[in-house]
């Protein structure tokens, strides 16, 4: 009994006179992983930002549990975790301070899981190090630690939108992350992600290639 989580209807978006996608429609059921493909500049990031409610220059409808996302934005955002291109970590703060701040502004994160999350992403012992002294990969890991802080209540309502989550992460890290994403989707969570790497997940993967939806 799969429940419909997200439904996208007739999405149209153009940027700089290039149609990124038109009549794009898809449905996403709870517990699935949507792997978004497409060449560089095909509009993957634009689509993800539209799905987050960050970018508004589009036509069409996006519904979360049958509600338009703009009508129930606070509820939608309380179910959503988004990872963008940028590190999204304050370099002047320590890993611990960054995650404490995140837990306060995004109540779907549990502050009591911070130290466990940092251990999971391999940053145990770096809690008090300023992020400007961490390597690029470690900074991304601080941000990724949020995935391990997701409150376990209501996982089936949660949606992760990950834009190139594996950038700058080493092989073991990618494997651990893939395992975590699988576990999340197995417990009912839903994921939308872009990556150019081969995905090795044992969950239900749905694929969407944006190259097929826009003008060349």
């Amino acid at each position, binding site marked *: 009994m799969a429940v419909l989580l997200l439904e996208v209807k007739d999405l149209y978006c153009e940027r700089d006179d290039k149609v990124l996608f038109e009549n794009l429609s898809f449905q996403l059921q709870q517990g699935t992983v949507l792997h978004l493909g497409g060449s560089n500049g095909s509009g993957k990031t634009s689509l993800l930002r539209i799905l987050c409610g960050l970018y508004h220059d589009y036509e069409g409808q996006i519904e979360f549990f049958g509600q338009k996302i703009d009508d129930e934005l*606070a509820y939608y955002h309380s179910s959503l975790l988004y990872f963008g291109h940028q590190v999204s970590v304050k370099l*002047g703060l320590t890993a611990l301070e960054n995650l404490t701040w995140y837990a*306060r*502004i995004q109540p779907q994160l549990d502050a009591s899981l911070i130290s466990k999350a940092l251990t999971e992403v391999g940053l145990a012992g770096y809690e008090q190090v300023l992020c400007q002294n961490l390597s690029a990969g470690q900074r991304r890991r601080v941000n990724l630690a949020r995935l391990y802080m997701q409150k376990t209540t209501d996982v089936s309502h949660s949606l992760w939108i990950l834009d190139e989550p594996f950038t700058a992460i080493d092989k073991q890290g990618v494997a651990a992350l893939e395992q975590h994403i699988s576990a999340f989707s197995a417990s009912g969570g839903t994921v939308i992600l872009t990556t150019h790497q081969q995905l090795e997940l044992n969950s239900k993967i749905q694929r969407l290639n944006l190259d097929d939806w826009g003008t060349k």
Partner: protein
Amino acid sequence: MMRVFWAELSRDLLLAFRHKGDFLNPLIFFLMVAVLFPLGVSPAADFLAQIAPGVLWVSALLATLLSLDNLFKSDFDDGTLEQLLLSPESTYMIALAKACAHWITTGLPLALMAPLLAVMLFLPAQAIVTLVISLLIGTATLSLVGAIASALTVGLKKGGVLISLLVIPLYIPVLIFGASAVQSAVDGLPVTAYLAILGAMFALSLVLAPFAIAASLRVSVSS
């Protein structure tokens, strides 16, 4: 709702404390104007006393303007701004916290530094209390209004010039009433009317500016 306000305020203050250069810049500017003015114009005490209210207020205003460029810039560049906007909590409170942190790191120290500079410019002693009070209320208004312009221009490469253009017309009333309050205090006239108007402008911007800041941030992030 208050939780997100405190979270944002304490984070911004901590960052300002760790990057002291950013918030010392406007203070040093304020000090430089007061030091250089007598050298450039005239060191005569009675002349300086006459122009001190205006000079102090104008330099405080420009010092605030100087710091507006960085208000949202670093958050925008590292992506934490969009994470803030993805928070299900009230963006009104987040915007208010940002403006509040800006005031604590610029307006408040400017107002506290003002008595020292007032003495350097021979401002009569009876006007110093009024100077500090008018600056405290006035700079809070400047922070709130300035944050709107800063939020609107944060997505642009060279937003600095645009900020000045957007914000100067809105700063002029604050400058007029602030400087007039100090001038009246120098002349021994009552100042409560001027302070009341400054207070009214502050109350208005306190209630309305966060909406405009939040909306401007959404527009800037959405490009």
